[in-house]
């Protein structure tokens, strides 16, 4: 119990600063990149892209909040970024439904009609 209290006191003594947000978003970005490299279903690839976009949004908001709290630039950039990623998802999913209609599956290995 004393150990637990000690641990809680140590954690309470640490303050969250810019670096924490940057480390978190960098890790999130690379999780997305790993998924992008290893997935073979287009929907799963899109999920990985979404993770990367979110990491960028966290960076926008964190830079604004921690370095320039009196401005709103990062905040509004994050808002626009969310709108654009929603548009991108809608288009990508329309493309995928079309691919599925033509090929009956969604795996990138079958998408070689435009390759040669």
């Amino acid at each position, binding site marked *: 119990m004393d150990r637990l209290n000690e641990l809680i006191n140590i954690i309470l003594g640490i303050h969250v600063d810019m670096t924490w947000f940057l480390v978190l978003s960098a890790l999130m970005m690379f*999780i997305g990149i790993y998924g992008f490299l290893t997935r073979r*279903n287009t929907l799963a690839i899109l999920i990985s892209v979404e993770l990367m976009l979110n990491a960028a949004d966290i960076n926008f908001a964190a830079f604004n909040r921690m370095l320039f709290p009196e401005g709103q630039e990062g905040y509004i950039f994050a808002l626009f970024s969310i709108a654009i990623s929603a548009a991108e998802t809608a288009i990508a999913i*329309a493309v995928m439904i079309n691919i599925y209609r033509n090929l009956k599956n969604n795996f990138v290995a079958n998408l070689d009609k435009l390759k040669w």
Partner: protein
Amino acid sequence: MAQTIIFLILAVIILGCGILAVTTKRIMHAATYLMFVLFGTAGLYFLMGYTFLASVQVMVYAGGVVVLYIFALMLTGRQDKKDNHSVSLAKKFAALVATLCGAGLFLFIIVSHRFAENMLTAPSEQTTSVKLIGQQLLSSDKFGYLLPFEVVSILLLACIIGSLIIARKR
């Protein structure tokens, strides 16, 4: 500080569900884990005091994008839902090594450079009101965002028409 504990909980949720979202076999589970990552991100925005951004994140991402994913998954239903055609183990290992090298480089650069030592204060001390955001979005003054706002609305219109044309039956 309470911020530290909340940040750590959110970070564990985001990273754990993120790893599960890119490694799980079933796409439906991946979409669900993605939703938890998005909720965790919204929690981070709440922690920073950006309440409007957090609610936009929940509405647009969790309410719009994830629902769209799940609809697309169900519409493309009859294929085997598992990602069976996954890459070979060697390629997976190569991707893992590349990712770890890149992440190590990024983390080294981030940790070895000091940013301003501003600590995260309680959200109530630093909030951006919705009124201010709305006035900035629709003003054409020096720090106004009217032009990007209109460009984004045209983009969304183009996106609606484009996705209707792409996905319609011929």
